[in-house]
């Protein structure tokens, strides 16, 4: 079964770009595979399919609502109370200690449980026909508010950065499990013929959870996220060594291929076929990757929309790259933007971080929409947990007017493929401390993302060490209300 069997959500057939098959993969390898090898390949049984291309597109469990995911991971955890979850009560009780029975025995990273409450320093207004409330820090998002769904009732199990980030990405707080992008490419393969199926981009500082956030865990290495550099060569080693031009590279690959084919003939190991194919794909990546990075074909208007500047590493450039990756069939794109960990001066910190991200994130929605890609692309925005309604200050650490880590409640937004636009769900109490309505656990979000891609989170499993593992462990409930 392939994507050919499916109708898109609008009922029209999916574009030819998305109906690739394994055969296509090789046919498109151009000068790639020699006649003998190709012949043996095509004559081969199902058995070889898996060894040949683990990223060959695979059928989902049911009709998908989205084909690709762009996950904007706001690493460090943005303050929901200053951006989305407006709490006038905090104004009233600004500077008063938080009631003990609200805190109970919640552990905190830095603050004491009796810290004072702190109101947001920002103004909130309602936008769009949905009337969603946003802070003045998100002018960009306010323009697309009717295209997104906001969940104010997210909660998680973890309150330290690395474990919490890894938890969102892999469903386990300990590193070593497959990440969401790995599960998705394992489940669906990729439709990108000459780019990796799961791409990771990062702007600002490094990410706490590191490579565990995009690792493939016990899934085959082919499913691990490939970190792209947002400047220079996107893929490590995609550029030839100095002095090796395209012609020499082609000559070299032809030589390697010829010698490998001879050896295949002698030895008969089908693994050599795969090697030949992977070298040809590598060669194609050498063309497609620079082409991907070359923003010169983008209109001035588009660049301005994002605030992107060709050649500069930024979140804006990464958002634009994400759109280009989606256009090329890349299945899962993780954009990390670090720097939301505002233990001190949350207002100043948000000015900076929102300044770096708000316009581009909104531009991504607009751009996908105007290109007709939003319907089949799921965009997710959020961090690893929320921030406290209480103030963090610490003379020894030089901190004041900050907010600490808060796992009980935080806000995320989703947009695009299969998401109800202009929808708002979930509520927190007057202090923004606890979720009071429609709680959404991280595992629920994961289940929902998989669902939108046509995957049943309880059926997308991998047997390892004697048991079937899945992204959502033994948890996860679909967030029905957010589905379009």
């Amino acid at each position, binding site marked *: 079964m392939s994507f050919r069997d499916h109708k898109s959500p609008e009922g029209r057939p999916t574009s030819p770009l998305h109906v690739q098959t394994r055969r296509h993969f090789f046919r498109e390898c151009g000068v790639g595979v020699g006649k003998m090898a190709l012949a043996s390949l095509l004559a081969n049984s199902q058995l070889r399919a898996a060894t040949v291309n683990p990223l060959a597109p695979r059928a989902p469990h049911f009709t998908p609502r989205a084909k690709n995911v762009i996950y904007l991971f706001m690493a460090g955890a943005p303050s929901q109370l200053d951006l989305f979850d407006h709490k006038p009560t905090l104004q009233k009780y600004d500077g008063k200690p938080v009631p003990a029975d609200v805190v109970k025995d919640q552990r905190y990273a830095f603050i004491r449980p009796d810290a004072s409450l702190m109101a947001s320093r920002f103004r909130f207004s309602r936008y769009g026909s949905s009337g969603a409330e946003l802070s003045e820090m998100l002018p960009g998002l306010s323009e697309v508010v009717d295209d997104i769904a906001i969940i104010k009732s997210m909660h998680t199990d973890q309150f330290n950065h690395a474990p919490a980030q890894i938890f969102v990405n892999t469903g386990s707080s300990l590193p070593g499990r497959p990440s969401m992008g790995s599960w998705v490419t394992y489940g669906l393969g990729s439709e990108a013929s000459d780019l990796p199926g799961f791409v990771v981009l990062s702007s600002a500082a490094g990410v706490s959870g590191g490579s565990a956030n995009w690792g493939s865990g016990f899934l085959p290495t082919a499913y*691990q996220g490939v970190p792209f550099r947002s400047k220079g060569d996107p893929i*490590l080693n995609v550029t*030839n060594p100095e002095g090796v031009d395209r012609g020499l590279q082609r000559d070299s690959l032809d030589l390697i291929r010829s010698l490998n084919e001879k050896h295949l003939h002698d030895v008969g190991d089908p693994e050599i076929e795969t090697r030949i194919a992977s070298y040809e794909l590598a060669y194609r990546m050498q063309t497609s990757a620079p082409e991907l990075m070359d923003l010169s074909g983008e209109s001035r208007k588009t660049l301005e929309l994002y605030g992107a500047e060709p050649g500069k590493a930024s979140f804006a450039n990464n958002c634009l790259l994400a759109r280009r990756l989606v256009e090329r069939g890349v299945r899962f794109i993780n954009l990390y933007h670090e720097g939301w960990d505002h233990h001190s001066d949350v207002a100043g910190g948000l000015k900076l971080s929102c300044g770096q991200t708000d316009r581009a994130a909104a531009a991504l929605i607009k751009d996908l929409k105007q290109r007709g890609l939003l319907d089949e692309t799921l965009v997710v925005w959020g961090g690893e947990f929320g921030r406290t309604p209480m103030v963090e200050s610490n003379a020894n650490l030089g901190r004041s007017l900050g907010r600490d880590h808060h796992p009980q409640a935080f806000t995320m937004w989703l947009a695009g493929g299969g998401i109800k636009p202009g929808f708002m769900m979930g509520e927190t109490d007057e202090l923004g401390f606890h979720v009071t309505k429609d709680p959404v656990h991280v595992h629920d979000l994961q289940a929902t993302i998989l669902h939108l891609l046509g995957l049943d989170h309880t059926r997308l499993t991998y047997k390892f060490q004697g048991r079937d593992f899945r992204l959502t462990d033994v948890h996860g409930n679909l967030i029905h209300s957010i589905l379009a």
Partner: protein
Amino acid sequence: MRIGVRNSKTGRSLFACFGLALFVTSDPTLGQAPDLPPPATRKVDYERDIKPIFARSCYRCHGAEKQKGGLALHNRDRALTGGDGGPAIEPGKSAESRLILLVAGVDDEGSMPPEGAGKPLSEAEVGLLRAWVDQGVNWPEDKEGARRVTHSHWSFQTPKPTVPPSVRQTDWTRNPIDQFILAKLEKEGLHPSGEADRPTLIRRLYLDLIGLPPTPAEVDAFVSDARPDAYESLVDRLLASPHYGERWGRRWLDRARYSDTNGYEKDRERSIWPYRDWVIQALNHDMPFNQFTIEQIAGDLLPNPSISQQIATGFHRNTMVNEEGGIDVEEFRFASLVDRVATTGTVWLGLTIQCAQCHTHKYDPITQREYYQLFAFLNNADEPELKIPTSRIAAKRAEIEAKIASLESERESQFPVPQSKDNWVALHPVQASSAQGAALTTLPDDSILVSGQSPDADTYTVVVETKGSDIEALRLEALTDPSLPSTGPGRTPHGNFVLTGFQVAASAKNHEDSPIPLQFHTPVADFSQVGFDVQAAIDNDPHSGWAIDDGSGHLSKNRSATFTLAKKPPTSEAVRLVFKLEQLYGSKHVLGHFRLSAKYRPGHAPAPALPLEVRRQQHLESQLADWVSRTPAFHWTPVRPAKIHSKKHATLEVQNDLSILASGDKPNNDVYEVDIPTTLKNVTGIRLEVLPDASLPDNGPGRAPLFSVGDFILTDISVSATPAGADAKPKAVPIQSASEDYSEPNHPAALAIDGQPDTGWTVRGKTGQPHAAVFAFKESVGSDGPMTLRVTLRQEGIHQMTIGRFRISVTNDPGPIRASGAPEDVESILVKAADTRTRAETARLKDYFLGITPELAKHNEKIEALRKSLPDFPTSLVMQERSREHARTTFIHKRGEFLKPTEEVSADVPAVLPPLPSDASKNRLTFARWLVDEGNPLVGRVIMNQFWQAFFGRGLVATVEDFGTRGEAPTHPELLDWLAVEFPRQGWSMKAMHRLMVTSSTYRQDSHVSEELLARDPKNLLLARGPRFRVEAEVVRDIALSVSGLLTPKIGGPSVFPPQPDGVTTLAYGQTPWTVSNGPDRYRRGLYTHIKRTAPYAAFATLDAPTPETTCVRRERSNTPLQALTILNDLVFVEASRALARRVLTEAPATLDERIAYAVRLCLSRQPRPEESALLREFHDRQLARFQSKALSSTKVTGIDARNAGATKDISELAAWTTVARALLNLDETITKE
């Protein structure tokens, strides 16, 4: 963990609820008696009445073979223990026993047996069970049954010695392995492949046993070796190679999850490479596998463990350490324990024990209780860093320490000699006497010390001879001396004197009979007591005079008075001066130590009478005395604590010197409570010493492992006093002031009493040294007798900045109490009267003074610089069992959650496996020995399977990590058992088993595969052909370095940083730069490459190297375009292709064909076939032409600048060869074990 959700539908403000107790709706069904059949009324017999019910309806899931939910009902002990959810039977209380509720079908959560799983119990049967429970669970003793958990699964059965089967093709088999393999092939109607040719065999053996390709010469030697045992000799030579330990060491490091960083957000570097060296050496020495296991699991518990055995325990220290701010350190220690249990289960037992962390294993016979019983074995260790006293570093340290000692011994002789700038010269007495018979002794520095009789009043007469004409003034110095009461300068008990008259008469030498009294202007003193001005010394009134009591209680200071001459003494070459010092005040107000000096007209001072060294000593003594007199000191009494408590479970132990040393758990922050009983009355303050210790990071005194290593933060200190007595209540003791000998700038001890919870005392900048802070009480406490002071030390920072070693002392000296600034031992000498100090104490004072005096600042800086240059010993992370009194308790954790400990468990092994020896103590060592006991049915099979996988690419059990019921069945079970039995028979020799495997005909088969065979056995399960697989990530690199001649073959040592593309490590937190190693370290074997968990070395990650977060016994083998890009374009391979080109051009004969042959032989260990040579030749010629025509840049491709091409005669040729070499390094065959 899900959080509770608060319902605010009522719309009531949370604030309305402030302070109100939570309103809890009670469950109406709670507490009501369940609807149960009545208990039977007769006496119940277990065998007759109960066992049949259990057997019929329960044993299927809760018997000896299966224990669903952890519950077993086939044995009394196990039944009463209960399952994962706790006890199922409450003896005597049938209505409260979960078992009864479930079989009666009245439990909320279901009924037993579940539908379809057995016949439900009748009411009468439930009644019988109830009666049996109510009658006290009468159950005949059955000791065997406690252990009797059986399982029919093959891997739990003891491997039986199997006789290798007979085969038809007897000339093919070389050893029993072949018989097993061939028998099956024959059964399947297949034939083994022929033996691979010798070049293939030698390359296969090299790659499998040492991980490096053979050189062409080695291939030639083997090919032409006509001896019948040529192959076996080669095997033996490779098994003896020092590179064998590297090759097999890297495999073991996969199991050990070796990494050079701590993981999680901070992911800092750690030093554990000595463990890697240990693995390499243990394998090279063929350490028997049982010993290899025992040392790694419990080397620290062996009798008198060697350093090497301690290093071995690094195996389980390779777990991650979370150092993110604001974490609960214990939570991540728990996580590391979970990992250790899982790793032990995977590596030695091939079991997925970790599945039982949250609930009883769904498929294998391991209950949740048993999981935590295994956990308990590993849960009792501390995790210190071990210093490894290598001889090289020790020698270097000794050398520097000798230099330091020499410089220290020179200090006294380097003390400066003052140059008299103001022309004062001490007058040398020729005669000194007391009118009242006291003894006046002239000291080497011309001062006069008074001793002996101590009259109430006296007059001293001192005669000196000097140049007379140029004297402008005379000076009397009243000096302290250790021999005097209160160290003087006077002889009263408090050290005062009164100089009532100062008279001097001068006469020319030889005219002593006509002295002339000298007249003075108004004298000046550096200090005069109120009412005792120095003027009074020359007022001719015997009742008034000069005295020096300043009211501080510390008279012990040098004082001086200067008397300027009103008229010069008579001109003469030499003058005789007679001083009369009248001290008629009474009550012993007489001088005890003094000196007379004269000031001469500039340029007219006589040469000093004293030798240089004497003056140096004088100056040193006077400076020392001055320092002593200026340094406040108090009488401190260290107190042995009666009770010490760490809120976060650090281990606090009292040392012999009454200091308290922290070890064990290292929480992010902590509160220590120390109870010190004292009989001292009127305590005025306490002193907190923080002390260095070799066990602490950078020697302490704090425990901080990162950022501010060795530091601590004392955020708050408070004291309360409880008088002795039954019902006495503690009372807070307010602290008046805080002072310290040292603090980090802006972090004084005063911040520990400022009421701010986040500020405090730190000593960054001077860690590794003792420090002290003194806290003076507002009012003294304890006027009525013995009491206990409770000192609470809050250390509530982040990043584990707690105090590592400290000592508390009390004083009742009157205030103001403050820190002396001197070390504790020096202060205790300072408070002693000088005349009671021992010689050693006096020497210690001087020695300490020499170390701090500004006069020797430059000299001491040199010493300090040397100290800083002392090289540290390398360290490694190790395990260290905790003492019995600090043993940790292990609990079952509900749903495996760290925060939900329930029932306590003690260490034991799962019942399905053989028991521990009954007499052994249940500790880690016993556990380690049990793992490799011959009775363990798993370990031999599991390890043999791992070896098999290494050679044949796939285990006899494909699920190398899972021998449980969900694992795959062995393809050759008899062979596996035969190997498992053979292993201990061979003395657990790993090399012997490797030898056995690689000398088999099975291993020596050709790996070529026909279409038919491929179709018949695609995965080569039957082994009708040899193994053929791409080599591991590190070996891909090692091959490239080796064939190009770049490889640095050095074995062991710290990790290195070969080049990798920019931007790999910057993706991770902290964006740690990757500073590339240069020189030989750039080209070390792959297993020495620094492994950073959050940003693994890119080329290895791409080539399927495992991440070190969890154990890995089976690597993935993928085949991706990113791998192609790495080998084509990564700098390591670019450098290798350049070097390989140079090597070919240097070493091979100069014809193109011979060069091609040599290059192919280097990479593939075989001769090129003609069509291969033709392709290579054609490629070479085409590229050469392009380089020669400058269509391609030779300098760019070769990396050689035209200016320094130097020896390279033909750079176009080198460039062309670089491109040929690059292609050869990328061949599938080059990176494959054929």
